[in-house]
């Protein structure tokens, strides 16, 4: 067997502009657009060419009175949601720019189409479900809210979940099913589904982290969930079987020297010959970005075991990604042909774009 290829994380672009720390970034799923948000209350949009040349195209002065903590694009790529410490969720759409509602990256002004109130204190995260019909948000008020997305930027509250005992840091949706996961300062991860005859409810609590869980990411096939924690580890949880709603911790990844603030899991660039489960990027207070490649467990007996950990290999890492500053978020680009692009946001206010490729 050939030795596994070695990879590097090489810088592609440095996108300064925020006057305070950059909290989060989000790649538009359909258009060549990258959005970043910051404690300076703005959202910045960058367009990129097929050759990955990034240019700043617009800035939304959101009107949020406190930091914009997180971003999420709707499936269509036409709507962006912002989660702010001012306790509100903003929903933004672009004015058509005279020309055909188009593929153009330019387009008109981004306008607030709707806002979702309800959280009592700082919103920490926001996420659209895979079908785009649901929006979830979470807050320091310990609650997770689920909203149904209606036409014309209207929303209906579907549930207020009060299962966490502390600040909820992150919400993510399962890539194919309507399963919601949340991570909290109470060290736990909670999973929720909709009871068709009733309301949304928490069906599982994943315990194991010994400190705040900051970030979550489902694997692209939805069978695994990665969590990054203040305990400096990344845990990987596996669904016991497709029929069941039980998840077990199968892997604990060490390596980060400080809190893990963000994880992102994407299809990566598949290697030949193994059943790839994609690439997981993690970052945090140590300023490092680490990338693991995952594949199906090898061997007869392991493959048969429902809780066999996936094969995993640290394929690349880089330190001081934002100089001496903390890195708050990493995100893989979801668009075909660009799945090797990774963006990061740091306390230096900058957004950086990286390419992970064979050395």
């Amino acid at each position: 067997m050939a030795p596994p290829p070695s990879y590097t994380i090489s810088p592609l672009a440095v996108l300064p502009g925020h006057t305070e720390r950059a909290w989060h970034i989000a790649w538009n799923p359909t258009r060549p657009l990258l959005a970043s948000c910051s404690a300076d209350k703005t959202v910045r949009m960058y367009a990129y060419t097929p050759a990955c040349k990034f240019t700043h195209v617009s800035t939304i002065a959101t009107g949020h009175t406190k930091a914009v903590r997180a971003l999420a694009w709707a499936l269509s790529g036409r709507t962006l949601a912002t989660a702010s410490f001012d306790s509100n969720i903003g929903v933004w759409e672009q004015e058509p720019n005279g020309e055909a509602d188009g593929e153009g990256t330019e387009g008109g002004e981004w306008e607030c189409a709707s806002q979702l109130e309800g959280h009592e204190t700082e919103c920490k995260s926001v996420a659209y479900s895979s079908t785009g019909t649901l929006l979830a948000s979470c807050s320091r008020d310990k609650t997770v809210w689920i909203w149904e997305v209606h036409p014309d930027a209207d929303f209906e509250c579907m549930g207020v979940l009060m299962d966490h005992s502390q600040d909820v840091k992150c919400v993510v949706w399962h890539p194919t099913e309507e399963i919601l996961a949340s991570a909290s300062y109470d060290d736990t991860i909670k999973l929720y589904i909709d009871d068709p005859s009733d309301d949304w409810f928490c069906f599982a609590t994943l315990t194991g982290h010994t400190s705040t869980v900051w970030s979550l990411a489902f694997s692209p096939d939805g069978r695994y969930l990665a969590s990054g924690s203040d305990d400096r580890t990344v845990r990987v949880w596996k669904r016991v079987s497709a029929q069941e709603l039980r998840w077990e911790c199968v892997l604990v990844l060490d390596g980060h020297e400080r809190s893990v603030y963000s994880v992102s899991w994407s299809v990566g660039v598949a290697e030949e010959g193994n059943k790839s489960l994609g690439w997981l990027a993690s970052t945090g207070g140590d300023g490092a970005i680490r990338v693991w490649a995952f594949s199906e467990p090898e061997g007869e007996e392991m493959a048969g075991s429902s809780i066999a950990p996936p094969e995993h290999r640290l394929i690349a890492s880089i330190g001081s990604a934002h100089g001496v500053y903390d890195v708050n978020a990493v995100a893989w680009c979801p668009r075909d042909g660009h799945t090797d692009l990774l963006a990061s946001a740091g306390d230096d206010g900058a957004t950086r774009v990286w390419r992970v490729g064979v050395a």
Partner: protein
Amino acid sequence: MAFSGALTLTDLNDFITPSQACIKPVEQLNPNKPEEKDPGAAATEIQIDRSGAYYEVTQESKSITNGTPAPAKKLEQAQINLNDCLACSGCITSAESVLITLQSHTEVLTFLEENEKNRGRIPVISSTPDVAPVAESYKVPVISIAPQSLASLAAAVAASPSTSTSEHPTPLQIMRRIRAFCVEVLGFECVFDTTFARHIALQEHIAEFEERWRAATEGGSDVASTGTGAGDSAKGLPMLASACPGWICYAEKAHAEMLPFISRTKSPQQVMGTLVKNWMGARWGKLPNEIYHVTVMMCYDKKLEASRTDFYSDIYSTRDVDCVITTGELELLMKEKSWDITQPVPGELDLIEPPLTSRGAFDPFGNLKSTAPRTISTSTDVKSLKTEVAPIHFPELLTHPGTSSGSYLHAIIAHLQATSPVPLALRVQTVRGADYEEFMLSKDTGTSGEEGEVVFKGAKCYGFRNLQNVVRRVGRERGVRTTSGAAGRLGGRAGAGGGVAARLRRRAAEGKEEKKERAYDYVEVMACPGGCVNGGGQLKPVIAPADASPAPTPPPPPPVVDEEGYKRDWEGSGVAMTLPPTTNGTGVVDVTQNARWGSKEWTRRVEEEYWRIPFIEVENRLADGLTGRIYDDLCGFGDEIERAETRRRYFRTEYRAVENEVIGLAVVW
């Protein structure tokens, strides 16, 4: 912040929880703070003595060891009372368990014990009501019980193993048993239920709806201004129900823009407070502060409601309701006093008792038993006291068809149907489950299958989730927005003439040529899913009577302890339970849903019990007569304006937005 016992047992998924931190300590100012001195001047430190009192000691004086101890200044301890809680924006909720102890069943017992010592010191029935109140004088203890609490107790009795399921007692029987307990064991003079107070509240509610309706139709689309809570801020439709204190508290703290729409009519509890302290008091020759009024409620937030300044009399330094205990606390009282609620009391099956032969609690007017020997035969406790006022029968357990949360919406619908010049047909439409339904009244066209003009649209909306949507909807329909912080600014952009939202709305209007839907005229809002029968103060579910003791307190499931030591009663809160690893996994969802089903099933049973309150025609007829008489008694026979003004004072209240500025002050990211 832990929930108090009973609250954790119901379907927490949809309750309003306390916020992360009470802001009160942040706001606390130290009145004893010494003058600022030069830098480098003596520092002070805080010492705590054995009794827990705090002292401020200057280090300078401490260091001088000349024999005299340093002058230690005793510091005030920060105290938080229910009123602080109401005025605070730190929490959205109200169910702080610490504060609840201020209005607890032990508080009731302590009072009754002390009060008993004062019995006889002062003539019980004062013939001169003008006499200034004497401190520590005997107070007439009165207790009023909510019908939802009776339903909860009835359901628990039905589920207890010592009760045959075929013939379990009705809420009326439960009422009689509780009355016997409260009179014989606790020493209450009078035991009422709150349904007659609700009867009055419903009349007032209808009157207020008519006022708003008239104003809205005459004055065009009179949109309420985002009121400040000042005098005439109550206006506009829809009118939103006001009986749920959880909703009121939430609206005052989080949705000030809704306050103008909230009905000013007092809740049944507070109407009962007015009746007991003012009307009955006057008949008994008692000042408001010579009566101690306890209510038994389905809801912890009723404690906060009773604590509102609006229901406090400065003149008499007394509240309309002195103490509120929950259904669970009443049950605890009975257990502590070894009273078996499953056992019948004599006469409990009588539908109605003749006024003069009823027990003191039942017909108290002029018949206070306090001067009678303390030997009570509960069935025929004929009071032989001389009566100065003609006895009045106080109606018992009135029924109001509609919802188990008070039938506010149905009372208005029935009124509209009864007073409409043309027949009105009612159509009910489910929006989301039984907790969110719309009720449309339309002019009867005479032809089946054809709906006439919709003249009224109401909704019943229970639970925090549905409440969110109603608030959003009413805000949209009536063009009011929250004015707080960024919400206002974002909203301003979203709602302004330009912008995506406005354009989207225009597009929708043009595209669909949609029939303009009628906006809500009335919404019966309750914060609890399932409404008041599922209130936070109700008894725990008794689902499996097989191994349960008569008292419905199944052993709590082993608490799940997480890494930081947070204990959570997952099963009890009706949410997820972690299965033991040995369990075959397919059971996970089932078990989870069983737990959830359990609490829903229990609510259904309590609801069923609620509707077993028998309809007694004569009671309802008496109620209407008495209502008019009470208006006359309380409001006098002055001119119309004067009467109306007095009536408002007795039966209506006000709301105030709680400013939300402190949030985030002490937050470190």
